[in-house]
């Protein structure tokens, strides 16, 4: 087979749009999407990758730097790596999945070295592979994706999935933002790697992450899991976008008058910062960083210093105002439910990877920095790509399937009442940004928010189809709305505090609720409870 045979085939279509026939379509070009595309291509699949922005700069990783859960294959080190986060995650992790993610991340991290990623070498001569510079990493992943004969469609936002008569997913279509026309990819399997949803909060690199993949998946009946773990907030300068929680470990937080905020810390004390921000401004100064740490910070994360250098602030000696920006499910652990080791979802032909998929299997209900998230993106991307390629091969030679578009909201002409994307996005933000609603949850406040969000959904469902120019924004805001409803319905179903999910009315963890909350639905949002793997084994043994 020549390289050329493995390219997706472009079909001639009239009227400026493009159409491709592929085995696997990957939606999203961040770490998870590029690993999925490369892995599917290595399995012999013809692959198209569509990104709403530019594969290489899109998503939360490209703009940042990220730790990676890369642990040498020493049993004691691996055991410690798995054990040390279990309590934080509320004991919802699954040891089998943690072990296979550690294995896969180790392999993928080493492949990056072979591909030329410039890992640093420490004083003892050892290559250190537990951190990646986002721009460097994603520039390399774009190159590898192209070298794998994947067809990359940049600025090509997916808007809806295509399904066959049996309800299996068979491609997607969307808009080409810079060409003002449409694209369609007919594929035997689709990988959703669209990231999480950060609700346009401008947390670094996340404004492309509006839950688009969730909405498309929900429209074909996919299920979600752990959506209550969706209230991660990151510290940034009040005026800026750069979030780097790790560095605030060296900060002292203070009120306007200079007195220290009691209990405030980047790790294990962020809620104290949130409570203080409810009262007034909060300031930080990285005064616990000595000269060596300051130098290492500058070397490791140049972008952290851009907001300071460009406003003339010395963050180590001067106080600057900080805020907490919502990261939603980008740093939460909820997402599409994974049903097997190949990262298949509950819908035939549909796979999920990275932040779009639930990270509960390795993080439970909490993830701190990027380390586990980056490991999950690589591992789940690799598996979803292979899984989708194998599924496509098993479907056999292309049959002429009759395909239908699955898009609902913003596509249907109904009431001649317009859907106003900016207004809707603002309305959703008003329900998910406030610390008193989302950071600190309470049944009565969740119920109030849900009533307003449900009413908004009824309104949006009845609205007229969006105009061509508004369609992308309309779908983004509808996806944000749908996401907020799975989040809060799931939060309402977990009557305890566990992981990042914090209920003022149930402040303690409840051993009887060591289970997962599944959710789904659009017009009617539902939740259900699934046992944790340990409980399932115990039951089987009885």
């Amino acid at each position, binding site marked *: 087979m020549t390289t050329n045979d493995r390219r997706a085939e472009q079909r001639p279509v009239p009227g400026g749009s493009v159409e491709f026939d592929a085995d696997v379509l990957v939606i999203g070009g961040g770490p998870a999407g590029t690993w999925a595309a490369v892995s599917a291509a290595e399995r012999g699949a013809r692959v198209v990758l569509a990104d709403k922005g*530019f594969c290489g700069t899109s998503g939360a990783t490209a703009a940042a730097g990220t730790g990676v859960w890369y642990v040498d294959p020493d049993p004691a080190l691996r055991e410690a790596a798995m054990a040390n986060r279990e309590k934080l995650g509320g004991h919802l992790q699954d040891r089998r999945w943690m072990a296979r993610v550690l294995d896969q991340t180790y392999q993928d991290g080493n492949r990056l070295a072979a591909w030329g990623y410039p890992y640093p070498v420490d004083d003892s001569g050892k290559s250190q592979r537990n951190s990646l510079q986002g721009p460097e990493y994603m520039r390399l992943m774009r190159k590898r994706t192209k070298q794998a004969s994947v067809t990359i469609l940049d600025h090509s936002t997916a808007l809806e999935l295509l399904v066959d008569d049996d309800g299996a997913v068979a491609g997607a279509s969307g808009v080409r933002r810079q060409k003002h026309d449409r694209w369609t990819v007919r594929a035997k399997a689709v990988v959703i790697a669209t990231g999480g949803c950060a609700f346009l909060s401008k947390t670094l690199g996340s404004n492309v992450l509006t839950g688009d993949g969730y909405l498309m998946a929900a429209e074909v009946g996919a299920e979600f899991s752990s959506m209550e773990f969706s209230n991660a907030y990151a510290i940034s300068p009040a005026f800026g976008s750069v979030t780097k929680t790790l560095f605030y470990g060296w900060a002292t937080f203070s009120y306007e008058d200079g007195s220290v905020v009691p209990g405030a810390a980047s790790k294990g004390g962020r809620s104290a910062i949130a409570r203080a921000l409810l009262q007034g401004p909060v300031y930080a100064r990285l005064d616990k960083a000595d000269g060596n740490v300051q130098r290492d910070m500058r070397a490791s994360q140049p*972008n952290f210093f851009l907001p300071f250098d460009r406003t003339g602030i010395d963050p180590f000696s001067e106080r600057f105002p900080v805020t907490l920006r919502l990261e939603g499910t980008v740093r939460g652990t909820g997402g599409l439910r994974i049903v097997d080791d190949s990262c298949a979802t509950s819908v035939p032909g549909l796979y999920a990877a990275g932040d779009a998929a639930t990270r509960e299997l390795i993080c439970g209900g909490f993830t701190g920095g990027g380390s586990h998230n980056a490991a999950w993106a690589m591992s789940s991307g690799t598996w979803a790509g292979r899984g989708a390629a194998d599924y496509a091969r098993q479907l056999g030679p292309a049959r002429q399937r009759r395909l239908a578009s699955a898009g609902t909201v913003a596509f249907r002409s109904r009431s001649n009442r317009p859907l106003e994307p900016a207004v809707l996005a603002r309305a959703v933000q008003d329900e998910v940004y406030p610390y008193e609603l989302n950071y600190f949850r309470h049944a009565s406040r969740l119920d109030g928010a849900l009533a307003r969000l449900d009413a908004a959904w009824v309104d949006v469902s009845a609205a007229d189809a969006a105009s061509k120019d508004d369609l992308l924004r309309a779908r983004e805001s509808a996806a944000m709305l749908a996401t907020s409803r799975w989040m809060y319905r799931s939060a309402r179903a977990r009557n305890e505090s566990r992981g990042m999910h914090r209920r003022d009315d149930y402040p303690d963890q409840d051993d009887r609720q060591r289970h997962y909350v599944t959710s789904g639905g659009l017009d009617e949002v539902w939740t259900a409870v699934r046992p944790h793997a340990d409980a399932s084994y115990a039951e089987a043994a009885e």
Partner: protein
Amino acid sequence: MIEVIDAERCTSCDICVNVCPTNVFDKTDGIPVIARQSDCQTCFLCELYCPEDALYVAPHADTPCPTDVVALRETAALGSYRRAVGWTDQTRDLRGIDRSYLLFGH
């Protein structure tokens, strides 16, 4: 948000139009324009990819911050991010000096 395209430095290569993940720029017959500034997510990546150091992203994420390009040229700000991450010929050694492994676990 993106504030400046320095017309003296810009060569109309349109790389920024291609790489911006939120599609802030538009191509023109001449140099690109900042067509949708409010869509800018302040990720600094256009600046990083600009081979001429013609772009400047102000660190303010939520509000525009009009910046005088003449004054900016007097500072070392243009291209400072690209130099710091080692994406220039003169600074390429900086690509491999990530010291995060010394900072984790704090």
